């Protein structure tokens, strides 16, 4: 296990990656973390400050300056802004005289050079000489290398009483199987379930379990990167995000130290998931999204179905990542400052990349499964948020045309099957019985109809209505809504929950259809009672929908519907007023 941890620590590429785990490690070791790293620069040379004791020694004030990977001569004392020696000088020159709180002035101070890998031999004597030369009474220097950090992690998180051997085995297997992401993910899932089940309701144990999960995810992510395949890390971190939210959702309003720690850890896991996703998209997908068929061909399909399934899944992931950025932008609240502009640029980028992906991979015009509605809905939300309405509706129109065509020819039409074995043989038969079974229900077409109706895309709405009338009269058109039982089941994917709004007949026209859909949204209080909605963390709900293939609730469009009603009322009253004036 230690070797796995050492490999992981050495593989951390950026300084902020090591930053990300050190505070948690220290907290778990019983330290009080005084300051955490900020983005960009150090605080007078200090990345992390903490007070605590190791191995029964007296309590000391630790000031960490962090460097990822091995420490080379250039990184020790080169011209880089991240060079270590200048940071250590800065701590002595600037931090110590001005920043140390009065309450810690009596403590011995340890200035710690923290490296993920090792201090290379060529620079060891320089470092040692520096430490000896600058050490004085009340001030000592230490180096924490990967080996030492691995030992601490083992001691803090993975010792047997915290992480039994069979649970440790899951991590080892997950790391060993990163080339087979499904298998690696299953081990990680077992590990996460074991830790959270073992933690029970006690907050302290929940904190430990979430920290262990967080560390385990980092370990997995680092190994995935080494194998050039982050799929397992993506799947595991997404699942961890939802489990962490389930563990944290009742702690949000609680004013207790461990409650805050739980919420904070859930947040850190969410950011780790976004980080894994960003890595995946930026390195593997976005550079090739503009190349015709490049991403489709990159699937290396064994069956044509593979391209379809992978591309729709990818579209859903990109869209959701874009929507997370919409959420972060909303949280930030200042669109015009640097962070706000950067977030807006990211939203635009994710939307553009989704557009490129669709334009260059035409398989995204032919959904094979009804549950592709989830990915399409997420993409539609991103396009709407990014102002790509024209593209959205041209895409949906083409998609519906193709669906109508596949339904009429009984080709690869969207079906309710989800099992791969069924999908590679779909459609098994052209006969009516099979067709009606495979299309017994639909969430895809009602969802498209809602978007069309909401944005007055009359031709598109009519096309979907025609499709229902011509080919899918037997199909139960439906939309999913959360219900009272959803909150306890949603994030952990337990049992069936929620309710389907059925009896959706598009023949009654767009306005009547919208009324049915959004009347139910208005009457359904369960959506607003969901913890992720109450906390304003709506992308978590969307993540659960994507992950567990639940249709996205139409409540997300309720505001648009109300806005539309109000716009119409204004136009109506203006017209009435104008008419009255004319009279």
């Amino acid at each position, binding site marked *: 296990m230690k070797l796995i941890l050492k490999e992981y620590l050495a593989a951390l590429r950026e300084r902020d990656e090591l930053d990300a785990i050190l505070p948690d490690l220290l907290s778990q070791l019983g330290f009080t973390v005084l300051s955490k790293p900020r983005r960009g620069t150090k605080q007078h040379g200090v990345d992390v400050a903490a007070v605590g004791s190791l191995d029964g020694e007296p309590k000391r004030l630790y000031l960490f300056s962090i460097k990822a990977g091995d420490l080379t001569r250039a990184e020790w004392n080169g011209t880089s802004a991240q060079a270590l020696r200048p940071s250590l000088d800065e701590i002595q020159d600037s931090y110590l005289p001005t920043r140390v709180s009065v309450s810690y002035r009596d403590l011995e101070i340890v200035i710690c050079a923290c490296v993920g890998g090792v201090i290379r031999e060529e620079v060891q004597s320089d470092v040692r000489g520096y430490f000896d030369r600058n050490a004085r009474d009340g001030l000592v220097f230490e180096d924490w290398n990967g080996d030492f950090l691995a030992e601490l992690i083992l001691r803090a998180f993975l010792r047997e009483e915290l992480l039994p051997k069979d649970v440790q085995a899951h991590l080892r297997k997950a790391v060993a199987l990163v080339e087979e992401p499904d298998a690696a993910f299953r081990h990680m899932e077992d590990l996460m379930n074991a830790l959270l089940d073992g933690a029970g309701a006690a907050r302290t144990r929940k904190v430990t379990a979430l920290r262990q999960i967080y560390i385990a995810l980092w370990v997995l992510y680092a190994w995935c990167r080494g194998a050039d395949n982050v799929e397992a890390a993506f799947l595991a971190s997404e699942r961890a995000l939802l489990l962490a939210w389930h563990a944290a959702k009742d702690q949000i309003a609680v004013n207790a130290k461990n409650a805050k720690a739980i919420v904070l850890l859930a947040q850190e896991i969410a950011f780790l998931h976004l980080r894994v996703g960003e890595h995946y998209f930026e390195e*593997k997908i976005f550079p090739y999204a503009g190349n015709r068929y490049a991403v489709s061909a990159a699937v290396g399909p064994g069956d044509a179905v593979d391209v379809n399934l992978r591309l729709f899944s990818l579209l859903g992931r990109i869209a959701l990542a874009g929507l997370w950025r919409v959420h972060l932008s909303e949280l930030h609240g200042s669109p015009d400052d640097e962070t706000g502009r950067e977030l807006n640029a990211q939203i635009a980028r994710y939307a553009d990349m989704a557009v490129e992906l669709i334009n260059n991979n035409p398989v995204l015009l032919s959904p094979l499964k009804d549950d592709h509605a989830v990915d399409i809905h997420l993409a539609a939300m991103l396009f709407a948020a990014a102002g790509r309405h024209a593209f959205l509706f041209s895409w949906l129109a083409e998609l519906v045309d193709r669906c109508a*065509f596949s339904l009429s020819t009984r080709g690869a039409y969207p079906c309710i099957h989800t099992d791969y074995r069924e999908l590679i043989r779909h459609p098994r038969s052209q006969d009516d019985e099979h067709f009606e079974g495979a299309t017994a229900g639909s969430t895809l077409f009602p969802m498209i109809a809602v978007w069309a109706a909401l944005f007055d895309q009359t031709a598109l709405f009519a096309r979907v209505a025609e499709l229902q009338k011509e080919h899918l009269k037997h199909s139960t058109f439906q939309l999913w809504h959360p219900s009272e039982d959803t909150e306890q089941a949603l994030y952990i994917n337990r049992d069936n929950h929620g309710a389907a709004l059925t009896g959706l007949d598009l023949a009654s026209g767009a306005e009547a259809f919208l009324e049915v859909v959004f009347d139910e949204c208005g009457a359904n209080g369960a959506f607003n009672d969901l913890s992720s909605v109450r906390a304003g963390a709506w992308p978590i709900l969307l993540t659960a929908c994507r992950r567990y293939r639940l249709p996205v609730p139409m409540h997300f469009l309720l505001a648009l519907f109300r806005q539309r009603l109000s716009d119409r009322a204004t136009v109506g009253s203006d017209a009435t007023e104008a008419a009255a004036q004319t009279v």
Partner: protein
Amino acid sequence: MTADESQIIAAFKKGTLRQLVASRSYGEDAARRDFEQALARLHGDGAIDAISVLNELGGGTRSVPGFFAVQHVFEAILPVLDAETGAVMNAVVDVVKAGEGDGAASLLIDPFSSFCGAAEKRPDEALTLIKNDPKRFALLITAVVLAGARRARDAWFENLLDLVASDDPEIARHACFAVGRFDFTGADSLVRRASAALEGVLDGASDDGVLASIVRSSFALGPRADGLACNTPAFLDRALAAGGNLTLHAAIEIAWLKHAELEPEILDLILRHGERVNSQMNGTMQFLDLALSNQLGAPGERLAIAFFERFAIARGADAGPERFDDFLRKLCSARRDLFGRLIVKWFLSGDRTLCAAINWAVMNVLGENESLPVEAIASEALDGRERVFVARKAIGHLFFRPKAAAEIILALMHGADKKSAEFLEEHLFDPMLANYAGSLEPFLKEYRKTAAPKVKGRIDGALKKWRAQINGMKAAGRIKELAPSERERALSRERFADESIAAMREAEKNSILLNLVTKAAILHGSASVHSVRGPDGAKHRGVTHMQSHSYSMDIPSQEMLDPFGLDYMLRVFRAERISQ
């Protein structure tokens, strides 16, 4: 008593004479002749009843073992058999009826005619029996009339005219047919009377069988004398207009068999009536195909093409290319320039059946490496819009023969304006090169060596676009995160294996070869050793070494990347029409 005679008597007593006759029908000529003579002799002596063998055949169906083999023996002995006329007629009629539906069903009719003519009284006896029971015996009228005419032509011509004028349609039908078989040598007056008789029947005739016989006989009489009523298009037109499937079948059969001597006016007439042919009548459709095929390269070629086009457009799938395989094979292989021009014309029509005919011809007649008549295609005068339209049709219908589709696109580039040439270049790139680079890249590189400068530029443009696309795809390489899981790969392989096994079984079921040979499964080794005993009784050792064989085919890349999109595009290309 000879050995044959002993065998025959023994078999007759055991009731296995039919089986014996069948088994001896395959022997060497001399032995077979000896056997046949013995059979006839023993029947004449009263030692056996040979006719009972025919009765046995007639009491069953043509699936009775040796049904036709036995008839071959009687074909030889019937003319010399000494038997009662009525008994032979009954036996022959039953056998002919039992064989209905097979081309050789009437094998015994001519031998029966010879039997009839072998004794003076037999034709009269036969005629009496026919008149007494026309329903049963009318099919022997021609045989009986010809037998009688060989002895007394004039008298039997009168008999024939009486029969032609009969109110019984069964008799009239066969009698009218017999007119066409009657020997009129040196008797023009009889020909004119026969023609007049046919015309007389035609007036008011409604029986399809009678009209079919009139049509056949009118063609038989036609060349014998000028100015015959039955020799005119009007006569044929009346017969065809009044007739049904059988009449049309007769006319079409004549159009096939007498194609060389058919007047264009008559051919046109038959083909115009042919437009209403019942496509369920497989025999008629087959003759129609042969008739059209025979006209290719002949004076009636234009009429044949025009008929095919009208028929295809009107009948759609009923006129599918497999129904006209001879015609299309000859068109594609022997009339290449015409085929080239028709490719353009038929694609331009947008008619599905005509387009499918091109597809069928290219897929089934044109060899994989054989070229299309590019110059003929290029010589057609088209505007830019039409060029692009024809190219899209070529892609829609010939996509799975990429070289052929590419050749058409390249041919259309000759004389194309800039805008349409750009479209053609785009189509040459996508979907053709983008899907079939493996075979099309070398082909295009070779083609460009001798291509006109403008076409060369377009080929370069398409190749450049394709290379850019390939480079873009190569840059992404395989993205591990997107790879199907091990389980999915295993399921795909399982499905592929299942489908391959099912296809193999289906192919084996329909294999002619496997129906002829025995199959042995070799578990070890690369050869099988076996010994067989030859006709001399000696054992011969044989070694069959295993051979490997393989077949490769280009799979369009879009089949994997966007199979539905590919299908959709091809269907759109096939369905679209050009506005006038």
